[in-house]
C-alpha cells in the first residue's frame, strides 16, 4: 500500500534516518511517497491545507497538539492508545516521551527519536588547547568564568547563531535549566500560568540570556545553525549550546563522540527539555490503508529501527530498551540524564499553543537582538502577549 509521508527534514543526517524508516516500511511491502516541506514555511498550515484540500498525507511529522485536535474535529484523528497498550510499548518510553505524545488523554503520536534541546557540545581538542574541562563545570557561572581563558587561547568560547529559532530553543533550554520543571511547565505547559511570567525565575532566565548574547561573537547575527555548529567542529570555537541534533553534524564530519567531542547538559541544569520527534497518522481511512499506517507505526517503534534511526540522525532512541551497542557516548549520556523522570520536560512544540509559543520567540528574539531592551520590558511584553492570546 502506498503511504504518503509528510515531513520537513532535509539535512543529510535527517535524510539518512528517514531512509531507515523507509527501508523498514518497504520491507513490509508498502511504498513510501515523500512530501518534504521546507523549514520556516509554516509547515503545519500546509499540512492542514492538504487535509482540508482532500489530499491529506497518511503519515506526518507533527508535534503540535493543536493539529491533532483539529484533525479530531474533522474526524480524521487516529488515536493510538490501544495500539501502544496492546503492544506493551508504553512502558519502554521515558516519561517525557509519554507526556509529549499524549493529546487530551489519548496517545496520538508515534515517537521516533529523542533530542535534548539544551546540550553543550564541545570540541575536545580546543578544550585541551585552552586548558579547560567543560565536564567539570557545575554551574553556568563556572562556565562563564572560564571564557576569558578560552579567549586568551584564541578561541571563541561559545558559538551562537542569530536566528529566531536558535534563540528560541536556547531560551526554553535555559528555562528548564535555570528555572526547573515547575517554572518551565508554568510557561510552556498546556495551561500556562501567568503568575510566573514576572517571577524571579523569569528574571534569572532573561538575565542569563542577556549574558549569552553578550558572549556572542561579531558574526553571530543571522548566522545559520549549521554554520555555527561548524565553527565548533572546525575548531574556531570551543562549544555550542543547543539541541543535541548537532551530533548529526559531528558524525557527518567523521568525528567520534567521546574522543573528538564531548557532550554535557547545560551546566547546573535543573531539568532538560526533551524534543520527541513524532509522527501522526491519519484516521478515517480504509482498512487496508489503516493497516499500512499501523505497520508504519510498528516499524517506527521497533527497537532495532529505533537504534539505527538514532545513529543515523544523531538522536537518541525513544525506547529505553533499544539495543545499546549502537549507542555512542553522547546517547548514553542522554539516556542517563533521562533516567530521572523529574529531570525532564517536554519540548514546547508538543504541548503548548503555537501562537503563545511563537509570541515568546518574538519577544526573546527582540530581547536578544536589542541590547538596550531591559528585562522589565521583556516581561511586560510577555505578560501583554499572555493577556491577548490566552487571557
Amino acid at each position, binding site marked *: 500500500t502506498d503511504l504518503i509521508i509528510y515531513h520537513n527534514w532535509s539535512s543529510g543526517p535527517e535524510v539518512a534516518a528517514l531512509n531507515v524508516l523507509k527501508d523498514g516500511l518497504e520491507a513490509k511491502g508498502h511504498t513510501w511517497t515523500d512530501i518534504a516541506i521546507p523549514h*520556516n*514555511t*509554516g*509547515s*503545519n*498550515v500546509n499540512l*492542514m491545507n492538504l487535509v*482540508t484540500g482532500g489530499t491529506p498525507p497518511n503519515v506526518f511529522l507533527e508535534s*503540535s497538539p*493543536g*493539529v491533532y485536535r*483539529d484533525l479530531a*474535529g*474533522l474526524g480524521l484523528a487516529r488515536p493510538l492508545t490501544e495500539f501502544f497498550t496492546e503492544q506493551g510499548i508504553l512502558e519502554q518510553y521515558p516519561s517525557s516521551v509519554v507526556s509529549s505524545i499524549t493529546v487530551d488523554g489519548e496517545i496520538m503520536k508515534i515517537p521516533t527519536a529523542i533530542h535534548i534541546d539544551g546540550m553543550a557540545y564541545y570540541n575536545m581538542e580546543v578544550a585541551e588547547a585552552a586548558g579547560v574541562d567543560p565536564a567539570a563545570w557545575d554551574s553556568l557561572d563556572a562556565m562563564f568564568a572560564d571564557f576569558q581563558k578560552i579567549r586568551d587561547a584564541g578561541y571563541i568560547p561559545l558559538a551562537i547563531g*542569530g*536566528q*529566531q529559532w536558535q534563540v528560541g530553543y536556547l531560551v526554553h533550554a535555559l528555562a528548564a535549566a535555570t528555572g526547573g520543571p515547575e517554572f518551565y511547565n508554568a510557561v510552556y505547559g498546556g495551561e500556562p500560568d501567568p503568575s510566573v511570567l514576572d517571577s524571579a525565575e523569569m528574571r534569572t532566565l532573561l538575565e542569563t540570556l542577556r549574558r549569552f548574547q553578550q558572549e556572542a561573537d*561579531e*558574526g*553571530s*547575527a*543571522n548566522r545559520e545553525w549549521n554554520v555555527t555548529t561548524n565553527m565548533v567542529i572546525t575548531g574556531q570555537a570551543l562549544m555550542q549550546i543547543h539541541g543535541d541534533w548537532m551530533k548529526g553534524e559531528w558524525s557527518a564530519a567523521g568525528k567520534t563522540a567521546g574522543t573528538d567531542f564531548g557532550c554535557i547538559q547545560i551546566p547546573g541544569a535543573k531539568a532538560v527539555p526533551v524534543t520527541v520527534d513524532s509522527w501522526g497518522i491519519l484516521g478515517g481511512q480504509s482498512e487496508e490503508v489503516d493497516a499500512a499506517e499501523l505497520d508504519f507505526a510498528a516499524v517506527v517503534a521497533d527497537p532495532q529501527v529505533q537504534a539505527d534511526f538514532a545513529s543515523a540522525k544523531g538522536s537518541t532512541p525513544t525506547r529505553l530498551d533499544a539495543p545499546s551497542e549502537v549507542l555512542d557516548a553522547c546517547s548514553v549520556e542522554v539516556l542517563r540524564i533521562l533516567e530521572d523522570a523529574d529531570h525532564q520536560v517536554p519540548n514546547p512544540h508538543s504541548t503548548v499553543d*503555537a*501562537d503563545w509559543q*511563537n*509570541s515568546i*520567540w*518574538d519577544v526573546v*528574539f*527582540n*530581547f*536578544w*537582538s*536589542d541590547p538596550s531592551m531591559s528585562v522589565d520590558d521583556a516581561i511586560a*511584553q510577555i505578560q*501583554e502577549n499572555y493577556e*491577548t*492570546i490566552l487571557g
Partner: protein
Amino acid sequence: MRWSRIAPQLALTPALAITAVAFVGSIGWTIYLSFTRSRRLPEYGIDWSEWGRQYDRLFRDAGWEISLRNLIVLGLGSALAIVFGFILAAMIDKEKRGESFFRTVFLYPLAVSLIVTGAAWRWILNPTLGAQSFLRSLGWEVDFNWLAQGDTAMYAIILASVWQSAGFYMALMLAGLKGINTEIWSAAKLDGVPLWRVYIEIIIPMMKFTFITCAILLSLGVIKAYDVVVAMTNGGPGQSTWVPAYFTINALSAKSNLGYASAAAVMMLVITLVVFIPLVALTVWQQRKREATR
C-alpha cells in the same frame, strides 16, 4: 436586437465572475474571519461581546507597530529607486553611447527572483565573508555590517529592493523622457538654461504623470513586500525587519492564527486604500486635465 451590446457582456462574464468570487467574495470572507477567533481552521461564530479582539490585539502588538514603522521606512527608502531610476534614465537618455548595454544591465535584476539574489546579498553583507572584509583587506576601514543590527537591517532590505527595482523605474522614466518633445530641449538650449535647471524646472514637472505612475507601482510593491524580507533577513534580527506582509504570513503560519492573520490582512487592505485612493484620485485628475487640454 443589437448583438453588439450582448457580445461584450458575455465576454466579460468570466472576468466578472473571477472578480466577484476570488476578490470581492474573498475579501468579504477574510473580513468576516477577522472578527472570529479562528485558529488553525476557520470558526464561523462571532463572539459579539468582543468582536474586535483580533484588532485589539493587533494594535497592541509591538510587532505590528514595528511592521508599520518599517513599512514607512521601506517606502521612503525604496523611493530612492525612483530617484535613482530617474537619474539613470536621464543619463542614458542624454548620453546615447552604450544605451542598450546599460539598459540591459540595469534591467536584469527584475528578471531574477529575490529568493535567488537574496542569498548573494546576504553573503555580500556578511561581515566576515563579504564586502566588509573585502574592503578591509584593501585597507579601507568600513563598517558594512548592516544585517547584524536591528537599526540597520532595514537598510540592507532597502538596498536589495532598490537594486532590484531601479531598472524598472528607469525603463518607465526612459519612456517618459522619450515622450518629451525634442523641441523643448532645443528651446532650452537656445534659451541658454543650465541643464540642471531644465531638469528641475521643466522636465521633472513635465513627467509628473510618469512619477505618479512610478509612485503607485512602488507603493504597491512596498505594501506587498514579502520575498525580499524572507530572502534577506527572515524578519530578523528580532522583529526589526518585519513588515505587514511578513506579519500576516507569520500570523498564519508560525502563530497558526487565522483570525489574527485575517485582521492583519484587513489592515493591509486599509493601508492600501488609504495610500491609493489619494494617489489614484490624483492620477485620474491629472489624466482628466491632460485629456481636457488635448
